[in-house]
C-alpha cells in the first residue's frame, strides 16, 4: 500500500458487502472493513460464532465477497489456522499460486473466554494469520451477558446493577497483554474512530512473518446503552480517557500511536474516566453517590494500566 488516502482505499475490492444484518450503530462492520483495507492480496476470512457471524451469513445469503468459513464458537483461531495450513500445503505442491492472507474475526467472548485455548495454540504455533477481536465488552449476541472483557461496574444481564451490587465486580482481563506474552511478531490495539491508525496497523499485521493479533474496541449501542449515532464518538472517548490506549507491540517493542502517543507526550490532555462512564447507560448507576468508590476504582485501574503501559514503552530491547 503506497498511500493511505480514503480515495485510494475505496478502490480496493469490497470484501464485506452492504446489506448485512448488524444493528444500527454497530462498530463491527466498520472495524472489519478497515482491517480488510490492510492488504491488496486476496483474504480468506473466518468468523467465530457471534453477532458478526450470524448477521453476515444467514443462508441462502452471504455478505462475504471473499472466501469465508465459520465452524463454531470457541475455535476461530483453529478454523483460520486450518485455512492457512491448507494454503501452505497446497502452495508447496504448486496447487495454489499467488499470496492469500488469513484473518479471523471474533467477539470478546470468543476471544477472552471460550476461544482462549485455541487462540493461544494458534499463536504459539506461528500460523501466518491475523486474529482480530471485536471487543464490545460482553456477550452481545446472546443478550449482553458479562465476559472477562467486561469492565468493572458495567451492568449486564448476568452482572446486574441491583440494590446490593454495582454491576460487574471485576475489571477486565488484559487480553492484549496475554497475547504479547506469546512473543508473536505483531500485536496492536485499535479503535474504529481512527481509520488511519487501524488500517496502518492492519497492514503491518498482514505483512508480519507470523501471527498477528489486533484487539479492537467495538462500541455496542444496545449493550452499552448509547444512541446509535454515537458509536464513533464512544470509540474516541475510550482512547481519550486511556480506557483503551492505542498502541502496538512490534517484535516485543511497545509503541504508543495516534491520540495515545499525543497524550503520553503531553500534547493532549487525558480525559477523566467519568466522561466515559457517564456517556453510557451500562454505567449510569456509578453516578450515584453510593457507588462513587466503584467509579474511583475504575479510574485508579485505568491509571495503573496506563502508567504500566508508559513504562513498557520505555523498554529498550
Amino acid at each position, binding site marked *: 500500500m503506497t498511500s493511505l488516502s480514503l480515495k485510494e482505499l475505496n478502490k480496493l475490492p469490497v470484501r464485506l458487502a452492504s446489506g448485512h444484518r448488524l444493528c444500527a450503530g454497530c462498530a463491527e462492520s466498520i472495524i472489519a472493513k478497515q482491517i480488510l483495507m490492510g492488504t491488496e492480496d*486476496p483474504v*480468506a476470512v*473466518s468468523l467465530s460464532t457471534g453477532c458478526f*457471524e*450470524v448477521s453476515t*451469513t*444467514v*443462508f*441462502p445469503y*452471504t455478505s*462475504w*465477497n*471473499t*472466501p*469465508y*468459513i*465459520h*465452524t*463454531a464458537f*470457541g*475455535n476461530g*483461531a*483453529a*478454523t*483460520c*489456522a*486450518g*485455512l492457512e*495450513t*491448507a*494454503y*501452505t*500445503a*497446497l502452495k*508447496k*505442491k504448486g*496447487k*495454489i499460486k*499467488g499470496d*492469500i492472507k488469513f484473518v479471523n474475526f471474533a467477539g470478546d467472548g470468543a476471544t477472552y473466554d471460550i476461544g482462549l*485455548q*485455541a487462540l*493461544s*495454540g*494458534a499463536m*504459539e*504455533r506461528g500460523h501466518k494469520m491475523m486474529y482480530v477481536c471485536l471487543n464490545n465488552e460482553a456477550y452481545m449476541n446472546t443478550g449482553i451477558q458479562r465476559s472477562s472483557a467486561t469492565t468493572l461496574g458495567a451492568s449486564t444481564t448476568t452482572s446486574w446493577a441491583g440494590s446490593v451490587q454495582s454491576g460487574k465486580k471485576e475489571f477486565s482481563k488484559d487480553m492484549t497483554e496475554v497475547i504479547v506474552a506469546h512473543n508473536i511478531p505483531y500485536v496492536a490495539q485499535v479503535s474504529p474512530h481512527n481509520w488511519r491508525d487501524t488500517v496502518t496497523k492492519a497492514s503491518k499485521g498482514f505483512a508480519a512473518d507470523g501471527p498477528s493479533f489486533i484487539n479492537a474496541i467495538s462500541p455496542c449501542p444496545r449493550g452499552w446503552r448509547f444512541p446509535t449515532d454515537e458509536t464513533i464518538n464512544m470509540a474516541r472517548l475510550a482512547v481519550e480517557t486511556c480506557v483503551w490506549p492505542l498502541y502496538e507491540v512490534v517484535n516485543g517493542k511497545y509503541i504508543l500511536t495516534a491520540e495515545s502517543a499525543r497524550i503520553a507526550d503531553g500534547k493532549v490532555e487525558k480525559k477523566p474516566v467519568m466522561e466515559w462512564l457517564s456517556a453510557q447507560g451500562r454505567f449510569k448507576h456509578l453516578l450515584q453517590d453510593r457507588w462513587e468508590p466503584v467509579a474511583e476504582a475504575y479510574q485508579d485501574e485505568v491509571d495503573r494500566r496506563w502508567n504500566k503501559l508508559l513504562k513498557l514503552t520505555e523498554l529498550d530491547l
Partner: protein
Amino acid sequence: MTHDIAINGDNAVALAWRQIDPDVCAAYPITPQTIIVEKFAEYVANGEVTTEFVCVESEHSALTLCTSSCSAGARTFTATASQGLAYMWEMMPITASMRVPLIMAVANRAISGPININNDHGDAMSARDCGWIQLFSENVQGAYDNSIIAPRIAEHHDVQLPCMVNLDGFILTHAIERMTMVDTADVKHFVGEFEPLYPLLDVKHPVSHGNMDGPDFYYPHKYQSVLAMDRALEVAEEVFKEFADMTGREYHLVDEYMCDDAEYVAVILGSSFGTMKETVDQLRAEGIKVGCAMPHVYRPWPEAALAKILKGKKGVVVFDKHLSIGAYGPMFPEVVTAAAELESLPRMYNVIYGLGGADATVSGFKKIMEEVAEGKAAKITYLGVKA
C-alpha cells in the same frame, strides 16, 4: 508387489497414511491412538511424506483445523480416541453438515468415567449420530485396508461426508499381527487425487462455508446428508469390490462367517468378530449351527444387507461393547429394526460385554450362544459382570 509384514494396528494406519501422503494432518496425543501420530510425525521428520503436520493444543482444535483445511481444498487426516473424540463432539456434526470428507482414525477406548484407557466402543457409539461414515476393523489388516478404502468413500462426489475408521484400542492398536501391505504405487493409484468441491481457497470463486440456517434450510440440509449417506452404501460396495480386485481381500457392508445355514447368528463389531469366528467353529464342532456377522459399515447402517443375513434364523444375538444405560446396547434396537421387516422375527437377544477392557473370550461367547440355542438366555445379558 505386495508383501507380508508384522505390524501393530496404529502403525498400520500410519503406514497407510504414509502411502496416501495427505496434504494436511493435525492431531493431539491420546492413548491408545498416539502411536499413529508419533509414527506419522517420524515420517514427516524424515521427509517420507509431504504432509503439513500440525500439533494442535487440543482435539477440539484438531478437528476444527482439519475441517477448515479440508474445506479449503486439502486432503486431511486426523486420529483420536475416547475423551479426545468426546472433546471433538461439538465439531463432529459441523464437519459432517459442511460435507467435509476428512478421514479420522479412532482407536476405540472406553469413555470416562470412571477413567479407563482400555477398549470398548463407547467413543464411536456416542458419536454415531453425528453424520459421519463409520467403518469397523476386525484386525490389523482390516484397519490398514479401511484406511485406504475410507478416502474413496468419503471423497466420492456423490457422498462428501467425513469418515471414521475404527480399530479396537490395544487389542488392535498395540498388538502386532501379520499383515499384507499394498504397494505404495497401487495405494496412490487406488486412492487417487483429491478433487474437492467448492474449495474455499479458490479465491477467484469465493464461497461461504458454514452459514447459519433458519428452519427453512436446516431441515433440508440435514435431509441432503441423509441422501448422501444412502449413496454412501452403494459407493462403499463399489469401492470394496475395486479393493478386492486389487488385493483379493473381500469386504462387504456386513462381513459374515458361516451364516448361510446357521440357525443362530451373532452380530458383533470390531476385533471380537474374530473371537466370535473361533466360537462359531467350536460350537459347530458340537453340532450347534451358529454363524456371525459384522457390520463393516456401521454408518450408514446396512439394514437391507443385514436383514438378508438374518432371514429365517431362529435367534439373533447382538453383542454390544457399549450400552445406553437404562435401555440396551446401541446396536441392539438397530438390528431388531432391520429384522422387523422379515416374515418371521427371530428371537432377539442383547449381550453387553467387554466394557472398559473387560475380557471378551471364546468361552464367554460360547456359553451365551449355548444358552440361546437352549432357549435359556435372557433378553439382555451383562456378560461376565461381577455384581
